[in-house]
Structure formats: structure tokens, C-alpha cells
């Protein structure tokens, strides 16, 4: 296969409260042979919050990011379900109306930028989608040095890469809401079925309704534990904040003991590629990852 070169938007949280995500993505890209050209001038996607304040502002900010990516001539990749969702929503509006696009591009012109609809070769995809659709699971399997044999992994998607149906690209890629399961299997792990895989982590209301938010997080972690999961894996750092960083608080709200490792998608891939947990920043997590590390050591050493 031809080497993948991608314009890379890491997002805010992967360089903020989940630095281990950005770090592990860099390692994984290197071993997979994916070249990432970081969009270091790009801005926050607005996470749906800016759109709530002023829809045009959110559309303009994301048009700027797309234009920066388009100026590299490369397809764009993000590592955050929320970025994917917020950006896809804006892109849908930008693509739907040429007069509106012209209006937004007038604002971008000062910086010498322009967002073009249907520009050849341009797409904005989450790492999960890139991995399955562009890199390919067969290719991924050839890179596995430490199959995750016997590791029971619960998928946790994050709303924004699977809903709303009309915007996620299911026409062309009808199985996007099954990719995490496919990746877990490709890496040699076992998929754990549990109720929360496609539900909401609760993060968007953590400062607005803490009880609702933590009850959601705690319920999903508890369900996964009950189903026998060794860990969860998620392509969304905001889900990670609620499922991992807030897990002790979620345990208090739901009134049960939790304690389940939550891995970022690049970390799970990285383990299978032979990286050590520490290299992947797993020591930075709040919920201990020792159990996962023990399970892997028992299975096949790297």
C-alpha cells in the first residue's frame, strides 16, 4: 500500500487533560508508517458549545481548520469523536449552500485561506475511520507484535462518531458503528458486549448537571465490569475524561465500586504493536491499568 500522509488535527483535550492520547498517537503513527503533518495553527472545533452560542462562528472556525488542511493538499485526520462530530456538522452546512460558503470564505480571505467544497483528496476522518477504511485491518494485522489474546475489551464509541445517522457517512460506510469491534478483533482481543457501548458518557453536562453526567459514566463502566471487561477503549478524549478521570466520582454517585481501565484507541493499538504501557502514557490514567498490563504479560510477551 502507498504510505499514508495526513494533515493531523490533535484537538485541544489530547494536548490538555489527556496528554497520553497525543503521545500514544505519535508513537502508533510511527510504527504504522503513517506520516502526520500537524496543523499547529488550527483552532478548537467548538465542541458544539460555540455553535450553541453562534452557529456562524462555529462554522467559520471549522472552515478555517479545513482550509488549513486543504492548503497542505492532504486528507485530514482527528483523534477525537467530539471534533469529528462538531466539524462534520459545520462541514455539512458549509457544503450545503454556496452563498453561505462564499460569505464564510470572505472572512477567511484575510489569512489567505479558502475552504473548497469537494476538493479532491480532502476528507476529515477520525483515526478509527482512517484505520479501518484507509490503512486497512489486514495491514494492521501484519503489524501486530503482541496479539491482545484473551484481553476482554469493551468498545465505547462516543456519540459524535456514530450519530446522527444522516451525517456520519453511513451511505458510503454503513459499518462505521461497528469499527471498534473490528479493530479489537484485528488486534487479537475479545469484544465484550455490554449496554453502554453506544451511549453517552455524560461529559457535555459535567459542569451543568454533575449528577446526570456521573450517573451516565458510572452506569456504563459498571455495566462493562458486570459483562466481564478487562478494559474499555474509546476514540474520544472527552469520553475518557468522564469514564476515567471522573471514575472515582462516578463510583460515588452510582454507589458501587468501579475500577476499570479505559484506554484511548491509539493506546490499545500501541499495546498490540509492542509498545510498553508506560511508553503509551498509561501510568497517567486515574483508573489503574495494572490489571490490563498483567493480563497482557500473562498472554504473549512483546
Amino acid at each position, binding site marked *: 500500500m502507498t504510505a499514508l500522509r495526513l494533515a493531523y488535527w490533535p484537538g485541544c483535550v489530547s494536548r490538555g487533560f489527556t496528554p497520553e492520547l497525543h503521545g500514544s498517537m505519535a508513537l502508533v503513527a510511527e510504527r504504522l508508517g503513517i506520516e502526520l503533518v500537524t496543523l499547529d*495553527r488550527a483552532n478548537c472545533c467548538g465542541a458544539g458549545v460555540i455553535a450553541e452560542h453562534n*452557529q456562524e462562528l462555529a*462554522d467559520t472556525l471549522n472552515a478555517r481548520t479545513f482550509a488549513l488542511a486543504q492548503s497542505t493538499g492532504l486528507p485530514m485526520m482527528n483523534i477525537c469523536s467530539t471534533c469529528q462530530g462538531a466539524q462534520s456538522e459545520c462541514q455539512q452546512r458549509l457544503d450545503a449552500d454556496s452563498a453561505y460558503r462564499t460569505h464564510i470564505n470572505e472572512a477567511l480571505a484575510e489569512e489567505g485561506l479558502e475552504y473548497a467544497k469537494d476538493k479532491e483528496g480532502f476528507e476529515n476522518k477520525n483515526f478509527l475511520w482512517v484505520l479501518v477504511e484507509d490503512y486497512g485491518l489486514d495491514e494492521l494485522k501484519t503489524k501486530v507484535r503482541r496479539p491482545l489474546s484473551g484481553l476482554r475489551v469493551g468498545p465505547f464509541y462516543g456519540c459524535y462518531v456514530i*450519530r*446522527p445517522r444522516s451525517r456520519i457517512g453511513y451511505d458510503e460506510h454503513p459499518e462505521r458503528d461497528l469499527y471498534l469491534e473490528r479493530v479489537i478483533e484485528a488486534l487479537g482481543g475479545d469484544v465484550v458486549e455490554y449496554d453502554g457501548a453506544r451511549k453517552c458518557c455524560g461529559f457535555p453536562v459535567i459542569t451543568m*448537571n454533575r449528577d446526570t453526567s456521573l450517573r451516565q459514566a458510572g*452506569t456504563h463502566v459498571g455495566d462493562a465490569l458486570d459483562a466481564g471487561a478487562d478494559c474499555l477503549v474509546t476514540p474520544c478524549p472527552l469520553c475518557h475524561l468522564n469514564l476515567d478521570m471522573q471514575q472515582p466520582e462516578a463510583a460515588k454517585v452510582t454507589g458501587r465500586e468501579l475500577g476499570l481501565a479505559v484506554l484511548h484507541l491509539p493506546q490499545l493499538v500501541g499495546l498490540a504493536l509492542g509498545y510498553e504501557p508506560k511508553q503509551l502514557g498509561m501510568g497517567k490514567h486515574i483508573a489503574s491499568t495494572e490489571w490490563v498490563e498483567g493480563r497482557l504479560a500473562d498472554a504473549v510477551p512483546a
Partner: protein
Amino acid sequence: MPEYTLKVRRYQPETGEGPYWQEFKVDLDPDLSVLDGLLQVRDRTDGTLVVRCSCRAAICGSCGMKVNGESTLGCKTQISEAHERANRRDGGANPIVVEPMANMPVIKDLVTDMESTHWAKIRRVTPWLLPEGEPPEREYVVPPESMIDITQSMACIQCGACVSSCLSMEVDPGFIGPAALAKAYRFVGDPRDSQATERLYDLAQDPHGIYDCTHCFSCVDACPKDVAPMDQIMRLRRLAGHDHEIDDVNNGRRHETAFVKIIEKKGTLDESLLLQESYAQGIKGKLIPRAGALKGLVGSIPTAIRGLRTGKMRSLPKLIPGVHHELPGDAQGHVKRLYSHAEEHRTQLNLYITGEEELEPEPDEEKIEPEADEEGEG
């Protein structure tokens, strides 16, 4: 005629037994619906199966149910598609799973009691027009374009599918919920209504109101009439927070304005500043903190300490609000100017109304000109 298997969650309270699953085989044209399958079961196999339906054409909203875990109308879900979805993962011969709607009590089999979690909440938002002054002698006259904005929420058929799918209501039954909030927007946006401000105050100041929505899009997918209830909730937030400057009990507006300002100043998110400003905004907010602010900030301390311990938050920008870097070079200045441009216009493109522009015809495609209307001439 192909055969399909329906696995139905059944419940008959009069037996004193709990709910149970029962499988039925049906012979059905693949173009027919899951509801048609259930009606065939009732007619041919088991006359005790209870399902509510009327029009069978996605108009009346009676047959809300869950098919393969997704809230929908039984009559709008093709049985062959439901069969395919049930077997997507393993390509096996899994049955189509049919359950009553969630987030509401089950009366019998597939029939739910919509009173407490749907109709009571609809009544909660005062779902009628509150015009000012004496009514006109004849009908109210408004410019048609002023009503377009609320046509989407008017399309609701009260089926309850969005309520059934709501992931916030699942953990907080007090949440007003997607159907009722979409209905609320229908009156807030109505040019004849005189109580928009009062309505917005009411919805923003209810701790289970507009800021209790977790933005999960479940209701958008569930709605059979494209009402997109979540989009209507976001419109209510835009009006309450920005246009009416309502500082709500849930910190929704503070969180939103803090977020928007941070990106203007820094380009990417300063999480610690967001947390601080969401609870105690500006100098005034810190000098005279609100009752909930201290609780919120103190509540986040254990999480911060844990983050410090593991190294997740062991850096100055993550600990001290405001230390976060700006975008490099002149990029931050450009972002600021984008703000001025967008704040000046505040365009709200509504694709439900405008639709998506049709693709331009391919250059080599033969263009069909309409025939000249000769009769019209002269």
C-alpha cells in the same frame, strides 16, 4: 414469501409474572413493516399479543417501539431492513428484537404508559399560544416567512420515540426531555406568542430543563418526522443564553460564554480556565461567588489532585487558569477577526428549511432545456 423471526419482549401484569422473551415466525413480503409482522403474529399465532397502532403509515404516531434496540415506529421500519440490521455483525440468523419503548412504564406487551414521561412533560411547557391583548376579529395575520423557523418542531406527531431514546432521561427521569422541549421551541419561536422571554426563563431555570440535554443525538436519529428535537433544544439555549442573557441555575450560559471567550483569546481550549470561569465568572464572580460556584469548584478538587498524582495535570498551564498558550504567529489575531465577522452576522443556516443545494450537473452531461412555451407568446 421470506420468513422472519421476531423476538418480542412480552409482559402481562395480570399473570403476576415478570417480562419474558418470545419468538415468533412470520411470512412476510420484505417490503412490509415490522408492525405488519406483529399484526400477522396477532392474527395467526397469538391473539393475546398487544400492540398499539392505527394509521400504519407513520402519520398517527401510535406504534412507537424499539426495534433492535433503536426507538422508532414499527410501521416505518421495513422488516427486511430490520432483519439485516439484526445480523450485521455476524451475518447469522439472529431474530429481529422488538421491545416496548424505554423511559416509560409498560402497560402490557408493547404498549407503554406515555402519561408520566411524555404527556405530563408536554403540559409542563405550556403547549398553547399565549398572545397579548384582545384577539383579532378574524385570524391572526403574520408574514409566512416568520413561521418557517418553527415548521420543523410543528412536524412532531407525539409518538414518544425521542423520549424512549433519550440518554439523559435514562438517568434523570426529571429531565423535561426532547419532545416537550421541541414543543416549547414551537411556541418560543411563534411570532404570535407574547411570552417567549418568560418561557425561556422557565426552561433555563429548571435544573432539569434545556441545560440537562447531553447532546447525544439519540433523539435526532429516533424521530420519524425529522423534528431533530436536540437542534430545537440548542436553539432554545442560543436564545436563552445569548439573546436574553439568562444566567441559568445549571451554569449553562456561564460555561458557554467562558468557552467562547477562551477560544477567542487562545485559539485552543484552556481547560482549567474553563472550569474556573464556568463556576465563578470574571472578577465579580470570584469576589462574590454564587452558592453553587464554591460547591462546584471544591467538588472538582479531588479530581485535580488525582490528576496531579498521576502526572496527567502536572504542568503549569493545566494547573493555573490563563497560562495556556495562544496560537502561533499571527494565527490568534486572525481567529479574533473571524469572531468579529461572525458575531456581526450570526447567520443561522437551517438545512431543514433550505435543504442542500443540488449538485451542479457534470460538464459533459447533456443539459435538457425546457421547451419554449410558444403558446404563451403573443
